[in-house]
């Protein structure tokens, strides 16, 4: 083995293995997704959720301010009037349709900022892949937070 071959081929390879060997001892930067998940930053903005009050009523009042603030124009809201028999939110107005086109959404969070009742929030669920384009239109039923289970009486 000539000196040139050692210098140009074997030495860099050995140096590379050396780095690998040194890194083996350090903590891992990657995680075994999806089995393992990394904790997200507190202000991460991903999938929208329409939240509820503790009473179970929807926070959303269908005011369309989120749609007005949305720079991607991906929110569509249709409002209707609450009745005493059929009450969805406190006050007079609730959203009868609430749709977000997730293909258009740029996750800027302006909707959350505009919302006067804190109804729409961007939470940390980022796994939004899907097979059909139509499935990216998130409806109110998909966005709405599940009702909290009734507290068990002791």
């Amino acid at each position, binding site marked *: 083995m000539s000196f040139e071959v050692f210098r140009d081929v074997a030495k860099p390879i050995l140096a590379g293995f050396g780095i690998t060997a040194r890194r083996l001892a350090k903590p891992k930067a990657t995680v075994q997704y999806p089995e393992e998940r990394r904790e997200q930053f507190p202000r991460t903005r991903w999938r929208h959720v329409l939240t509820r009050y503790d009473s179970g009523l929807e926070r959303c009042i269908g005011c369309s301010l989120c749609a*007005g603030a949305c720079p991607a124009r991906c929110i569509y*809201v249709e*409002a209707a009037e609450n009745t005493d028999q059929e009450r969805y939110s406190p006050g*007079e107005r609730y959203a009868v349709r609430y749709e977000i086109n997730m293909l258009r959404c740029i996750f800027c969070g302006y909707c959350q900022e505009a919302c006067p009742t804190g109804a729409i929030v961007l939470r940390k669920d980022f796994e939004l892949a899907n097979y059909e384009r139509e499935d990216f239109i998130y409806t109110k039923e998909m966005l709405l937070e599940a009702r909290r289970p009734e507290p068990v009486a002791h």
Partner: protein
Amino acid sequence: MAAAVQTETVAITINDIELHVPKGELIVESVKRLGLEIPIFCYHPRMKPVGMCRMCLVEVGFKQPDGSVRKMPKPQAGCTLPASEGMVVYTDTEMVHRDRKGVLEFLLINHPLDCPICDRGGECPLQNNTLAYGPSTSRFLEVKRHLPKAYPLSEYVTLDLERCIQCGRCVRFTEEISGDSQLAFRFRGASMQPSTFQLTDFESRFSGNVIEICPVGALTSSKYRFRARPWDLETRPGLCTLTPCGTNVFYDYRSGRLVRINGRTNEDVNEEWTSDTTKFGHDALYNNPNRIQVPHVREGEAFRAVEWSEAYAAVLGACEGKRTAVLAGTMLSNEDYYAWQALARTALATNHLDLRWQKTLLPASQMLKARTGLPGVQYGIADLENALAILVFGTNLAADQPMSYLRTRKAWFRNGARVVVAHHEASEAESFAHVVLRYRPGTAAELAAGLANLLAPELADATRIATPEWTEAQTGVPADRLREAAEALRGTEFAAITTHGLFDEANGVTAYQTLALLTSHAGGKFNGLVNHANEQGGREMGFAPDLGPGGEAVTAGMNTAEILQAAAKGEIDTLILVGCDPIRDFPDTALATQALENVANLVLVDSAQTEACAYASAILPMALPAERDGTYTSSERRVQRMERILKAPGESKAPWQIAMELGLRAGSSAPYFHARDVMDAIAEQVPAYAGARYQDIPETGVRLANPEGLTRSNDAVVQALQSLLGGR
């Protein structure tokens, strides 16, 4: 606005800029001359100022002989302050800013700030003024006033008392503009509330306007409630096609669906007002769940959806060599009427076409022009404002001609015009009438003769018998009242208004023509207006059994009633209905039903399913007025243009297009590619419309002039009067 006649001007100074304004002009208007703005709530340019909201406070002073300015110690309300010589106004000083902040803070103390759910949010003067001039925070920690929310004042108007800032615009509107005085303030001071007197329904033909002039969301539309926010809406200018007035409106739509109608300013027609028919009537039309999407032809008991070509072939097959008649609704555009009458008279070879749906259908030879030489429409809606006296005859003006009604009332309210109302039943116009002539139903002609007896000596031969005393005996109108009415009209260039609805009264035609003639002799101007949307345009386009385009005489065909009678007897093979349903539109429902039953081929061109569909052999979907380009002629003969606003559902086509494509297949029509081309053809054939080509129609529309050199003739009417009165 009236032309500037020698007005005295005064020199005032606004923000150190000197200018001359008419003496007595309100400061709030004067500042607009400089392109400045004073925030306002209660002030409305079309109503009297009241100075209730104090939003328009300005600093005012007067120039002293030594050139210095002596300021008033307190700010003044710009909306109640008339300009006077040497006045110095500041709209932008520290003090004014502080005052505005203070006023807004007070107004917001009890305002609920439920803007997110308020229909006014986003187009709210209170929001805008607060943002521009108000404080950024509130110091009010106490509990706000709580009052009923969403109280239904009427079918159309919802009242939210918490939001009211007591500006009084709505109350003043009903007092000053619509005149029904339905709204008033109950209670005083902080508990002041606008409402109806006895908490009854807010019954007005113009109630929708208070929604638009309310500077907060206190009065909102029950029909538009929660349907959209202003930023969701797209807005385009359009026209009302439900009333004959040609009211200018905005169509607000969301995702292609009409959600509301708002008034659009046109000083010559509606100023900025709308009638409730206009404001709330279009919704059911455009959002009808039963809109027809594609052409259908009958197959046995059921309909089969077909291509246009097949539908056309079916229609032409049904018309070829058959006895055919065409009936049209009153909401089509001029282009539609022109194209359909051309099709009917060439390819279908028939003169049996009509668009009138009232009981009395005059042949051309019996009409006003043929019998007296007078045109039926002699002045415009805006001219009413300057009339010194107005005679409203045989019509419920507010219902039939809402915009003429508002102008009539304005003439009385602003200029003290004397209004004489003659009708056989109570109507809104009586509330401000100088004299009310309530005649017994069916005696309109006798009353007209009685008026002619007093006002038109030229007709003395015919009306000699019709002395006030005789008229009292005949009509029940006291003789003194009649004399008083004649006195109010005599010597003025009064305006007489009636409508074609008068024809349906006993001897109504004679009454109508006598009225026209006596008005002409007494130096007045006469308007006999049509009562349906574009009836005027349709008739001028020649959609009439005995009149061609521009009123040229043609071989007379059958009118609506005759067509239906013939159809009922089976003497019509093919009946084409364009945008009409005889069962709904014709007064004699039984005859209409029988007619549709006995017609072999019933071709329907309509936008939505009607009762007539049950009898149809072919149905062609028609686009509604806002879904296509077109021009419309209002009852005052103003031609206005509406561009396409909404998308027509399915495969709907404009009626003129349907007529043109049928004509092309029958080898008789010229190919028009756009409604503009039809209008060009109209302009060539109808002299009056020469100035109404698409590129020539101004934004406010063009009012057609009457031809010069018409000669008045008394004979026909005198004869009719003599035979009527002589028979008594």
